[in-house]
């Protein structure tokens, strides 16, 4: 299992959090932790997602990117650890 930290910027729209969680589960990633905050000034939410999976993280990034309200998805390499468990 590899662990990754994703930083997701998104418009603060209806159920965007649910959408991200649904895609993450469906595409085969376990959620180990999450923080979410909205900047009320510009209505942009920042979501940090700690996930783990055997699958390449690019698969999840591509799928989250397809969600309509998402602005960007990045992997925080400093906080991600690739280990074999």
């Amino acid at each position, binding site marked *: 299992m590899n662990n990754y930290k994703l930083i997701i910027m998104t418009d603060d729209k*209806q159920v965007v959090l649910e959408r991200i969680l649904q895609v993450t589960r469906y595409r085969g990633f376990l959620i180990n932790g999450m923080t979410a905050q909205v900047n009320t000034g510009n209505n942009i939410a920042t979501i940090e997602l700690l996930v783990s999976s055997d699958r390449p993280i690019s*698969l999840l990034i*591509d799928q989250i*990117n397809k969600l*309509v309200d998402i602005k960007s998805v990045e992997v925080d390499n400093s906080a991600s650890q690739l280990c074999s468990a």
Partner: protein
Amino acid sequence: MNDSKPLTGGGLLFKVLEQHGVEHIFGYPGGAIMPIYDALVDSNVQHFLCRHEQGASFSAVGYARASGKIGVCMATSGPGATNLITGLADALADSIPLVAITGQVPTAAMGSDAFQETDIFGLSLACTKHSFQVTDINDLEKVLHQAFAIALEGRQGPVLVDIPKDIQIAAVEQKFTKASSLKNKVKLPLADITKALDLLTHAKRPILYVGGGVGMANAIDEVRSFAETTGLPSVSTLKGLGALNHTSENYLGMLGMHGTKAANLAVHDCDLLIAVGARFDDRVTGKLDQFAPDAKVIHFDIDAAEINKRRIADAPILGDLKENLPLLTMSLNIEDWQTQIQEMKADCAWRYDHPGDGIFAPAVLKEVSDLMPENTCVTTDVGQHQMWAAQHMSFDDPSDWLTSGSMGTMGFGLPAAIGAQISRPHDTVIVVSGDGSIMMNVQELATIKRYQIPVKIILIDNAKLGMVRQWQDLFFDGRLSETDLSDNPDFVMLATAFDIKAKQITQKGEVTAAIKEMLDHDGAYLLQVKIDAQENVWPLVPPNSANNEMMESA
């Protein structure tokens, strides 16, 4: 619209539909959508009352696929909304642009387990491209425009808009005078084709592998001219049928589980696979790590998430096919490979000689295909009859071939044909159905009767859930479990009850005359074709096998 009445949310819905050129919609009324149905009375949009919301959703899918326009369906809250879900999931899986409107209980009642309240917004997450729930009347107009834009942009798909009853009733003013649309959110990089050009020039045994994305991208001309100029041997997925010129000597037909032997062997042997709007689906690849094992891959797609999802691409080309495919068009030096392909094609040609007086379904479908008028649109249900139709019928355009590809949804054929016929009133529309599948949306015979929709239904009747029976025979030691349908209703009598002309045939000698009678008949027609229950679909790539390990008989 009657201008003396103030505009409501329901009225605004139809104004926006009209702005987007929507002429026909499919639906079923109920309590939580009554204000919208009330507004319908004053609108120019023509509504078709289906007899089940699943029928409405599939008619919208058929409408969209046959015409290239967006399909629109609507339903009430609760059970009406949940009945749409199978159609939405089917549309998502096959990338079909739909807008689905659902009524919802009033905002004040939401979350209280109100009568006919279901969280369709929550349910929509896994079966739509995007969804909205409108809780402020001032958002309605913009949301509706967005729904249309999202359904069409990039990789197409279904969008659901859930509208609570109080929003449908609320007074509102229309702000946008014309249909507004979104810009494509995804900035596609300029395609880097250098690597692809290099791979193509050096390939000795290249194959063009064409999928449903070609039709969706409206890139049929580009793909055909690419195939012709390069002389590439080509194969098609189930959903891609119709995109390539089926009379070309280098075209090998469908690949995959029930593909042609030539297509599967050629792909297995190729050294370069050029995937165009195709996604390496498991029904195509068989055992993935043994699919085209020696091939490099050039992958054209509009959806970044398809690149490297199931097969790493050596040269990914992301973006619009119409623009990108011509960049790779050139003439190639592959005569030896072409000769090999053409020999393989001749060796593996279909045979229609079949012993006995009983009817051979592949021969029937081949004959229908030869006799049907130009621009005929064929829809299918799911099972053996679907695979025989894919193998033995030929299509000039993907919009003439509507089958539930990714979901494989029984019950698709009849309502999809209704939608197709409404979108193309001057073309012949034929449903190839099975005795199991037709019963899944049989209520739509009433829609055919009501609107006098002249679809032709060919019912391949083996008195079995044939495809499942075939698998039980081949892979479960012949232990038959719940696949017998020998107590089917009298289908001729059933059709007659809906004023649909019908006939049953049981002998080879009756086939030609019956097909002609059906095609010549002005109105709807059901031709029940009785076949042997033990017939199997061949060839077949068994589960977990490579595509070159096809079975050709039991």
